[in-house]
């Protein structure tokens, strides 16, 4: 199945823009984040600490709704879903 990954601000620069990832059916948010990290060294470094934990500033969205990082391991994605990754917002 295909999942669209959108990244913004410094995470967009590190990941290199939006991605369409082909992932197995039943892929979780955590597994997708790992797959994004596997696309490049820069992406991996921007998303993960050295111990493999998701960095504290990364905010997750699934189809336009915020996802708690504690939910990432159990949230199962579906074909056509959109996942967004971004740092704390700074508008206004």
């Amino acid at each position, binding site marked *: 199945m295909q999942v669209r990954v959108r990244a913004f601000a410094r995470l*967009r620069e590190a990941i290199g823009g939006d991605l369409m990832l082909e992932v197995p059916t039943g892929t979780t948010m955590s597994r997708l984040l790992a797959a994004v990290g596997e696309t490049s060294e820069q992406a991996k470094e921007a998303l993960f600490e050295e111990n493999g934990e998701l960095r*504290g500033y990364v*905010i997750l969205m699934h189809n*336009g709704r915020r996802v708690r*990082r504690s939910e990432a391991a159990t949230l199962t994605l579906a074909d056509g879903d959109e996942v*967004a990754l971004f740092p*704390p917002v700074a508008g*206004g």
Partner: protein
Amino acid sequence: MISVTRDDFDVNAVIDRVRKPDMGALVTFLGVVRDDGGIEEMELEAYEEVAKKEFTTIRDEAFAKYPIAAVEIIHRIGRLRVGENILLIVVGAGHRKEAFDACEYILERIKQSVPIWKKEIGKEGERWVPGEFSGGDA
């Protein structure tokens, strides 16, 4: 009206669009690009679809919390020079207190949760403005 746009806006035209005879107060917040020491431009980026939804939610919250009659929010994106307009909030109400309170509420909520980011660009280089709210587990 809520708008995320690359285009500039005419503050007076927006106020005229909002004003009604029963409004005694039209509180306006205008955010502009500040010269923070060597900054020449700012690049504003948004997750547009979500930003528009979030602005709508914030506007609805303001209507639920304060006895106000109208809210207009325009946020610009793209590359803006020092002194250019970024954000316009206009709140129309019968009286000043609720208009000021609602305008401040809307601004603080925008800073908390609308997915927009700013990169400062100057002679010394570029820097993403850090967000005030981590919200990693929000």
